[in-house]
């Protein structure tokens, strides 16, 4: 399981990726991240909120209050700017993985 230090700096990217599946509130995003990563991330759940606020200030996500089943939730969704940032992040990540893998593999 990857701890907070291991994924520090990637939280915003991960949140954008989780929002690709559709709008979600904070706890819903945590559940989504846990499920998609197969429980690989041991992330303090509260850290998602500062990340969401940073993304919102950057125009990459937008949010609004929503009531559902008697619960009042702040629901976040990707903006076009966020979509573009996610695509760029995916390309950068793929390049990084290729580079690291090339070094780590036997004979690299």
């Amino acid at each position, binding site marked *: 399981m990857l701890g907070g230090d291991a994924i520090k700096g990637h939280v915003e990217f991960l949140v954008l990726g989780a929002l690709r599946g559709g709008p979600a509130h904070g706890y819903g995003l945590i559940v989504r991240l846990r499920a998609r990563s197969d429980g690989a991330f041991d992330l303090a759940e509260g850290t998602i909120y500062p990340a969401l*606020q*940073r993304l919102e200030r950057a125009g990459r996500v937008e949010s609004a209050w929503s009531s559902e089943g008697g619960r009042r939730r702040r629901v976040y969704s990707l903006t076009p700017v966020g979509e573009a940032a996610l695509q760029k992040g995916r390309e950068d990540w793929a390049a990084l993985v290729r580079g690291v893998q090339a070094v780590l593999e036997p004979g690299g």
Partner: protein
Amino acid sequence: MSGPIEELLQELARRLGRSPEIADRVLDETREHLEESAAAARAAGMGLAEAEAEAVARFGSARDLSRALTHRRLVARSVALVGLLALCAGLAIATFDRSSAGHRMRHAQKSMPLRADAPIFRRVAPPPSVDPVLVAYARTALIGLHAANVSGVVAASMRSLSGVAERAPRSHPDAYAFPGAGPYGACIVVTGGGIGCIPTLAAGSDFGYVVSDPDGVGGQPVTVAGLTDSSVSSAFVITDEGRVDVPVRHGAFLWSPDDVRMSNSDITAIGVVLADGATQVRGS
């Protein structure tokens, strides 16, 4: 009702007390998150107290969350404060700079009045450059102000600081000066008796001025004319390669050696166009 969730929310509210603009939203979202997390834990078979403790443990501490939420705001406020301090220092420098230049101007005018037979200009050694630390400071101040996003004040301070910034170290090999005045530029003076030159600024300046004095010179004060009340509509210098208009700076016709350096040509004449359209030229 008190439990782990309420305790965390109370601590978070206390820590966010100085950031009321975000506190309500953060507390609402945190409460909703913890209650949903605890509900999920209970659905998995935990008791109420155990489920709440589990939800709080997963969420993390109120201290870490409040720090993460307020850190950027503290940085932004610090940048704004630094920007304002830089503004004050920059304006002080600009005020001192202008005051000092005015003193040098007055001193030069008193000590070397206009002579009708004075030669025009000669090329001289480059002037000493302004302390680069000062220039770097002025630029840093402007950057700081931009970072602080104090746009209205920035515009005003840009104008005030332009005198400092314009005196940045220059790459030109030449400067022009009136003989005997030192290598620091010259004035074009318009008087009742015609147009002439006076030596202007003392060491440290590399600008020339166009001034207008309808009362004449020769012991009388000569004032730098603003465009709005000047009888001069434009000014120029003549070099080996032609006429070069003198640009307007600080409300007067004012040039630096960079403006008149054309293939290292000498300035052979100076001239003005008066408000009535008449042109006066002195020199060859």
